[in-house]
């Protein structure tokens, strides 16, 4: 018997908005001018937040912080497609997602300032607390998605992780569960090319990360992660597919971490300035600005107003955060179980 091909896959890459600010109108998602402006304002707000967080960290007012510089379009473009009722499972480099979902910004500073109360998600949002061990929250999204399906809720569960996360066992186990149970899940990988000092090529010999999805029985797509329209469209389509019962999707946002892994890292130890410089023209904020300028949606005046507005919001969040009373030390004990154990009841008397 001759050998035959029993399966073949085609991995797509989606790009809509190029570096000059021109779009492929055949692929352009339906977005009003106001929505586009809102996207831009969120990009600026997220970048303003990021810059402020770095300043505050240097001043010793925040702990270690993981910046999002360069990845704003991947985060805001995807979150822009989400409903507030969708479940979000973030990793630690997702401040743009939080901001786009309308999470109270002072609580983000509170969390990075070392206070768990910053992760008390407001009741109108379903954002799971930040997952620190890389990739281990991927099965949680699969589980929440299966639960949503079980209850007949028209929501999707979305997990965010990085290129490093795709090397973890829980990436495999979570994807496998989601595929087998056709879970309404969307997996968003921000492939920012670096897991601290280890480059993307050392995470996987696979040509793309997107193609990994096919071995779990669902589609993976690579999008230009610095193209907010491509990210938005891919996420919107994946959510629609999930909510109509057609199972999960994996979106690889091909982007770049423009700065250090965290404030405790020095990226100059392991990567060349040339490489970083080569990504500068691909900046996600610049690209949307060029598009809007061509469309007459962007002016110097608008830029100034947008920046001022962002600064006011961030200033207010910082002062709001600083007015919060320190946590009660006994809180570290009180929230272990619903009720204190007999031992904990004795231990908490120390405070």
């Amino acid at each position: 018997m001759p050998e035959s091909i029993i399966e073949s896959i085609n991995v797509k890459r989606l790009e809509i908005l190029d570096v000059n600010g021109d779009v492929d109108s055949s692929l352009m998602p339906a977005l009003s001018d106001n929505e586009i402006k809102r996207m831009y304002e969120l990009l600026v707000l997220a970048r303003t937040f990021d810059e402020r967080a770095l300043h505050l960290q240097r001043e010793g007012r925040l702990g270690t912080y993981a910046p999002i510089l360069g990845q704003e379009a991947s985060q805001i473009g995807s979150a822009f497609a989400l409903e507030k009722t969708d479940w979000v499972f973030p990793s630690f480099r997702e401040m743009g997602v939080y901001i786009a979902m309308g999470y109270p910004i002072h609580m983000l500073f509170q969390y990075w300032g070392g206070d768990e109360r910053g992760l008390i998600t407001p009741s109108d949002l379903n954002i799971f607390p930040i997952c620190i061990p890389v990739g281990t929250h991927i099965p949680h999204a699969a589980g929440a998605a299966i639960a949503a399906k079980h209850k007949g809720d028209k929501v999707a569960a979305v997990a965010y992780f990085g290129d490093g996360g795709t090397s973890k066992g829980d990436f495999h186990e979570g994807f496998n569960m989601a595929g087998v149970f056709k879970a309404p899940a969307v997996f968003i990988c921000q492939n920012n090319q670096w897991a601290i000092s280890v480059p993307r090529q050392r995470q996987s010999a696979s040509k793309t990360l997107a193609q990994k999805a096919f071995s779990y029985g669902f589609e993976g797509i690579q999008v230009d992660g610095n193209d907010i329209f491509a990210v938005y469209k891919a996420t919107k389509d994946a959510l629609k597919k999930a909510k109509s019962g057609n199972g999960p999707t994996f979106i690889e946002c091909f982007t770049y971490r423009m700065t250090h892994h965290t404030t405790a890292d020095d990226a100059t130890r392991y990567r060349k300035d040339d490489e970083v410089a080569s990504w500068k023209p691909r900046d996600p904020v610049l690209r949307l600005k060029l598009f809007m300028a061509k469309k007459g949606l962007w002016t110097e005046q608008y830029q100034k107003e947008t920046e001022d507005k962002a600064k006011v919001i961030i200033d207010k969040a910082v002062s709001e955060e600083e007015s919060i009373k320190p946590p009660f030390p006994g809180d570290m004990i009180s929230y272990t179980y619903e009720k204190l154990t007999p031992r904990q009841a004795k231990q908490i008397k120390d405070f």
Partner: protein
Amino acid sequence: MPEEPKRINMVQAINLALREEMQRDGNVIILGEDVGTDGGVFRVTDGLMKEFGPERVMDTPLSESGIVGTAIGMAVYGLRPVAEIQFMGFIYAALDQIYAHAARIRSRSRGRYSCPLVVRTPYGAGIKPPELHSESAEAFFCHMPGVKVVVPSTPYNAKGLLKSSIRDPDPVIFLESTRLYRLIKEEVPADDYTVPLGKARIVREGRDVTVISWGSMLHRSLQAVEGIDAEVLDLMTLNPLDEETIFKSVRKTGRVVIVHEAPKTCGFGAEISAAIAEDAMLYLKAPIMRVTGYDAVIPLPRLEDYYMPTISRVRKALEEVIKY
């Protein structure tokens, strides 16, 4: 009218608890390897898929971390998952999910989210299986704030404790002794009773020595104390520990023997022993003795009987503390 209690074994009692809880609450679902069509390798979930369908009794891929991780997502979303890990030796792959997530979600979100999850797993030696099918790793889980650890020793308590575990708002590791699964039968009411978590029971009252045990070793302890005026405690829940019942008994007897199957070093007996030393030292008339598995890898069946605490080893410890 409640049905007449039937004499059933622990497998049947656990099955009954699962069935009753699934009937009571549509959010209770079972997931694990072979739990559906096959009814579990020990038949604990037998018949449940037929009754509740494949969406509530889910045969999953062979994926321990995935099973627990998925169950965490389900629990946080609002279901009451009961995940089965086929043998305790395979739960190690899911320790990260249990310790890094299930145990911490309530704390990490300062009470915004909780994780009402039960992980059932058969534990312990005595059924002549391959490697890693005989583990007694209960102490790992007792060292994880945020997790509760429950070990039933009889069919009646297994049913009542499992029902409490499923209704508990926090993650529970529920350990089922493989050796006890079919060893004893007792009357188990078909009505909706529960046995509270965090409470030990006095199986037998006595004045001369307190024997503290749980799960399969309880039965060996009961055989070992014949003819001795011993008080025998069945902890049932290891974490949170019912120190009050322990101290009350120690104050009465002044002598303690702790019996468990797990290795001695850092076994849960060490915790009990330290607790007694801290709070009831002055009542002791003899050193606290531990009769445990050896500090060794649990052997294959040829040496299994040498590994587990025997009646004579327990008996020897009892005689020693009484003579002291």
